[in-house]
């Protein structure tokens, strides 16, 4: 099996599975309990939080645990909207966000908030100048992704951070669920107030994620209750998943994999086929490559490769089952004919040079078969 669907989810590192089994068995206390079993769980969570903070070059007090990317995005956006609505009700985002941002924006529009959705160019990038023009006196939040999940577009987060230096009262949220590579190498820009990460995108468990919240920035909570996570996110802590996530993040950050060279090799290889169009822009995240064979629906290509033990996806897996237009490619002005044929190949630190070679071999066979159909 060759797994090239890492932007949908990643297989857990074996060491993470071991850690979680050990924790489930030996750390039975509720971290809020006063007896030593509780203290033991609490202290493990504290160490995990410290380790994550060290790896992300921030303060332990700025790391909050959530149930994943969707909840981190919802908390950042709705939490900011409710906290700051007395100062204004205007929010800026982009047309190519993940549904956990877009649908949250639609919800807020129903609550009387006013949302601006920025256009992108044919490379999928927003124009920072346009963003500047969209800012109003009542703007309270800018929310955008660092790396797009469907095509791999790298958005100019650093430039937006510079622009927003002039507007210190606007909360700046970054969905970095697909951008861990940049968070680790460039660090979180100092102007970013809120940032979302999800453990199952870096070989950790599902159902756990991180909301980074800059010290001193306030948001309203979505979940109320026992006051865990300093009141930002109530609910008994998921000790095993938190430990698993901390371990996954450490292991991931220690792996040096030449993903960039895989990307270049794949691009060169795929471009050499007549009728194959590469939809991912040249300057973009190294782990995602979206392409199409003209005339072959994405789903068909996906299953043809699946028969040979190679797994990739048509569009972001969250919306794979809905047959609606590919919204990121649509925003990039890619025609419907092509976007229907798009498949996404997404790599991770576990993939190897051999797998890339094997894929090329299989793809060539599949392509030859299809080309007969296309000619007839």
């Amino acid at each position, binding site marked *: 099996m060759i797994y090239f669907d890492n932007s949908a989810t990643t297989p857990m590192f074996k060491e993470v599975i071991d*850690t979680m089994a*050990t*924790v489930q068995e030996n750390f039975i206390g509720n971290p809020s309990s*006063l007896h*030593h079993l509780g*203290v*033991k769980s609490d*202290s*493990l969570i504290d*160490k*995990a939080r410290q*380790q994550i903070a060290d790896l992300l070059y921030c303060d332990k007090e700025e790391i909050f645990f959530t149930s994943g990317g969707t909840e981190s995005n919802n908390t950042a956006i709705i939490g900011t909207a409710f906290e700051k609505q007395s100062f204004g009700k205007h929010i800026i985002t982009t047309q190519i966000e993940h549904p956990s941002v877009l649908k949250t924006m639609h919800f807020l529009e129903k609550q009387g908030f006013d949302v601006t959705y920025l256009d992108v160019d044919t490379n999928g990038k927003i124009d920072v100048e346009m963003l500047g023009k969209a800012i109003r006196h009542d703007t309270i939040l800018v929310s955008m992704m660092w790396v797009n999940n469907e095509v791999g577009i790298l958005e100019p987060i650093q430039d937006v951070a510079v622009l927003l230096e002039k507007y210190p009262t606007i909360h700046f949220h970054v969905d970095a669920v697909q951008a861990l590579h940049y968070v680790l190498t460039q660090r979180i820009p100092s102007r970013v107030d809120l940032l979302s990460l999800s453990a199952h995108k870096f070989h950790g468990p599902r159902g756990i994620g991180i909301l980074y919240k800059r010290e001193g920035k306030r948001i309203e909570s979505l979940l109320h209750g026992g006051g865990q996570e300093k009141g930002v996110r109530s609910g008994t802590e998921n000790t095993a998943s938190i*430990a698993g996530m*901390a*371990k996954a993040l*450490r292991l991931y950050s220690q792996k040096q994999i030449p993903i960039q060279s895989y990307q270049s090799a794949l691009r060169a290889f795929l471009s050499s086929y007549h009728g194959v169009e590469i939809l991912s822009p040249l300057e973009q995240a190294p782990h995602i490559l979206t392409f199409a064979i003209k005339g072959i629906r994405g789903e068909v290509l996906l299953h043809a490769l699946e028969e040979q033990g190679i797994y990739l996806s048509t569009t972001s897996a969250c919306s794979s089952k809905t047959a609606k237009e590919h919204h990121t490619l649509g925003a990039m002005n890619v025609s419907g004919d092509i976007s229907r044929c798009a498949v996404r190949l997404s790599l991770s630190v576990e993939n190897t040079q051999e797998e890339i070679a094997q894929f090329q071999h299989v793809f060539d066979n599949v392509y030859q078969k299809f080309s007969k159909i296309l000619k007839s």
Partner: protein
Amino acid sequence: MVRYGELSTKGKNKKSFTQRLAQNVRHILQDFEQIKVNPDYDFMYITLNGAPEEVVLERLKHVFGIQSYSPIYTVEKSLEAMFQQIYALLSNMDLSDKTFKISTKRADHEFDMDTNTLNRELGAMVLDAFPQLTVKVKQPDINIKVEVRKHAVYISTQTYIGAGGLPVGTGGRGMMMLSGGIDSPVASYLALKRGLELEMVHFYSPPYTSPQSLRKTQELTKKLALYGGAIQFIEVPFTEIQETIKEKCPEAYLMTITRRFMLRVADAIRQKRDGLVILNGESMGQVASQTLHSMVVINEVTNTPILRPVVAMDKLDIIALAEKIDTFELSIQPFEDCCTVFAPPSPKTKPNLEKVRVYEERLDVDALVKRAVDGIKVYPIDVQTRFDEDVEDLL
């Protein structure tokens, strides 16, 4: 090379001071077996033999009794070798708009180049290699010291300021009453800085005080072990004494009598463990037990000198020092300690000694003290000590 601090003035005792400092330095570097520590009369030399320089420089920062220290590089006696070493050192520094000079000391007068020639030659070579530097003889940014000895040349470019004070252990042994509050760790730090060897006496009253409160005090001790190595931590079982006082004495006098017991127990432990004095974190007027009237009545149980390093310090200055030595955050964790158990709403600020004596007659003082002293647990805590399970392999 380490320069001794104040102890260079100590005449005949100097040797025992330098020996003690060497022992403390060896202790904080004990995980690097290859390191050699040689205390000479004027300087102490630490030979790294491959141990990581940054780690050693960082750890020396906190050792009391060191005025300053410099990394020194040994090279053979040729102009070329000297320059190579200087070049390597300067290459790692930010040199923009910096000034420098070469200060040569020629202990070996057989050497064929004299001081001035060496200064001139090496200076010219450095200027050629780093055009952004300028020469400045008075107070340069970088003073490149070149010392020509019999067998080799020593070169150094940087001097780090040490922690000052006297080597821990040169001043004798004292018992520190460590509560876990803000003041007693600061008092400990000041005492260590004057060369005292401390043993921490902590009164522990389970179940009235929680394991977390004991843990916090152990963590504070670990912070203080940074300055002079391992510290003996003494856990005193105090529950019985507190319960007995609570049962048999009037509320307004609970605090006064409890403190007198703490002092009796601390004094008995001091005797048992060859300590000379008792220390605590009392600061005038802070709380009811620290008014002068209270101090007099409490102190009446012993003639042993009681040193109070922070007695006349303002609370804000104590907090500033606690933050500097990184004990403040730990100290303010809200765990009940022995001082707050059974704390009456309004303790006497001017207790009457006659009344105290009458109330204490209701108690078997000697037996209570003896049982507490017999039940102590003693164990060393140093910077390597861990108080919880090692979960590193889990994360």
